[in-house]
């Protein structure tokens, strides 16, 4: 193979994944059966939201427990004075410690490998190596949460003047490094993930959407496109068209239909609605591109000519 050909092949291999749009977040994850699942790394905002939900749940639980303890005391006929305060203090000190240490570990050890917050955001914890997620890894990643979140929090709540104030400020900065750690690496790893060898990925539940080529709306056979008209676009444009059709926004469809009609010089059937036209063109284009794919050529986009 000549060098130029090799370079071209390498370039094609690089551009090969069809998920061009979100390629930066996709990670190769090959199952033992040899299929790449292309997992998507969870973004910083999703992770933060999941954590906020979890902390909300923890605080709510503690409030409920404190109230229960107070009611129980009142039920025993004791005053709510000093003893009440004491009970609430114990609930918060001990409860928060137990909860924050066992809530995360407990949920991440279950089959879903996600806390309720992560569940809601459609995330889960996996082992970076692709092996099984072990209990040790889950424990290690959560023990470091202490350093990343709760230590900066104690510094923030600390009060001091002069030298003490300076120490507190330095503490906030030093621990802040760990808090912001996920923003500075491409896998969005917390220090805990780094130590435990874990990764948080998106694992959403998806419903099977209807096949747009199955029931072309209106009268599909009225529109028959020539090969030249179908060769105007590639896979990338097909996927954009798919998104437009699935979102079914009238104005976007009108704009897109106008563009396509102009590009392929479509003059027939002026009474055809935009949606019908787009659905028919989608089916035609997909059929044409899939046909070419079967013969070994995946046409990346409209600039890709062979």
């Amino acid at each position, binding site marked *: 193979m000549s060098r130029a050909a090799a370079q071209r092949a390498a370039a094609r291999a690089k551009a090969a994944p*069809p998920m061009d749009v979100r390629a930066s977040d996709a990670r190769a994850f090959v*199952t*033992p*059966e040899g*299929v790449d*699942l*292309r*997992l998507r790394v969870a973004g910083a905002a999703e992770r933060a939201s999941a954590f906020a939900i979890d902390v909300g749940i923890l605080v709510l639980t503690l409030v409920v427990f404190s109230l229960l303890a107070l009611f129980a005391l009142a039920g025993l006929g004791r005053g709510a004075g*000093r003893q009440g305060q*004491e009970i609430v*203090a*114990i609930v918060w*000190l*001990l409860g928060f*410690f137990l909860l924050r*240490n066992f809530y995360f570990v407990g949920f991440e*050890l279950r*089959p*879903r*490998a996600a806390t309720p917050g992560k569940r809601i955001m459609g995330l889960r914890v*996996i082992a*970076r190596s692709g092996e*099984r*997620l*072990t*209990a*040790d*890894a*889950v*424990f*290690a990643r959560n*023990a*470091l949460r*202490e*350093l990343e979140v709760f230590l900066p929090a104690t510094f923030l709540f600390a009060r001091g003047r002069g030298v003490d104030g300076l120490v507190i400020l330095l503490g906030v900065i030093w621990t802040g490094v760990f808090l912001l750690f996920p923003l500075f690496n491409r896998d969005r790893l917390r*220090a805990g993930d*780094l*130590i*435990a*060898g874990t990764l948080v990925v998106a*694992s959403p539940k*998806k*419903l*099977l*959407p209807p*096949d*747009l*080529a199955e029931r072309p709306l209106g009268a599909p*056979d009225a529109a028959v496109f020539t090969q030249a008209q179908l060769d105007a676009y590639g896979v990338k444009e*097909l*996927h954009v068209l*798919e998104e437009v059709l*699935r979102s079914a926004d009238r104005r976007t469809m009108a704009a897109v239909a106008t563009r396509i009609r102009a590009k392929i010089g479509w003059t027939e059937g002026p009474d055809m609605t935009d949606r019908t036209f787009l659905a028919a063109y989608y*089916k035609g284009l*997909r*059929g044409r*591109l*899939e046909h070419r*794919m*079967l013969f070994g050529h995946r046409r990346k986009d409209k600039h890709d000519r062979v």
Partner: protein
Amino acid sequence: MAELQLKSNRFRIEREADWRRLEVLLEKVEQKSPRRLTTKELLEVPLLYRSALASLSTARSISLDQGLIDYLEALCTRAYFLVYGARTSLPDRLGRFFSEDWPGAVRALGRETLAATLLGVLGAVAAYWAVSVNPDWFYAMVPEGLSGGRNPTATTESLRKTLEGAGPDGLSVFATFLFTHNAQVAVTAFALGFALGLPTAFLLLTNGAMLGAFLALFISHGLGVEAIGWLMIHGVTELFAVTLAGAAGFSIGWAVAFPGARTRMAAASRAGRRAGTVMAGVVIMLFVAGLLEGFGRQLIQNTGARYAIAAASALVWGAYFYMPRRRRAP
């Protein structure tokens, strides 16, 4: 007719039922538990998973329906984690943890444990000496909130009272605070090991210093024997736990500083997993220490009995971790 129906569409129609079936089973497992599946359903899962994977491969090479491919990727990912997920049941896993993993991980950290112990002892000795020479050093070693009124200005009588466990009001809050404080020290000592182990060393030193300062205070009032009994009934377990946590922190710091043949990341995560095992055990030890502190110390007032419990706990932990044992056949 071939023109009217795309090949990729026919492919989807043929296999859709299998995918839906897999989805139903996954839903059942994720909402409830794997035990809710019947044997027949359980046997069905791996077959459906492999056929879904095959469908995904095929779909990627023949279909341009992005919605379908996204769906199959999500479905296969969910099924993958079920099929290759946890194999052992929780009781099995716990059994292995107590019989092999935990003592094994602790033994593997022998060098670090020695270093952590030396640091703690060094802190204690230095603080003991400093406070004996000048009692004012006590305030520098022990934070106000932790001393609970035990400071150089206290009378011998009031100090003796604190040892009997009939302390002032709010003692339960104080005990809880101490427990969470010590657990905090342990977890932080581990977590900070990441930064090359330096903060861990500092924490171990200060923790030892606190102990030394307390001892110096009580011994100067002639209460040394009673104070050691009061401290060590739970302190043996607790200090051992803090030392192990520090050792776990050191092992990570060491791996980060000197990763050897591995990459720094790989070395850190390897050390981190072993240290994670140790830390899971440390939390259990701290819990035991909390029980001893909360109940044992209040109920057992006899100094001799306190020494006996301290010695027994030292023996039990030492034998559990370090006694040579037969390897179980793999």
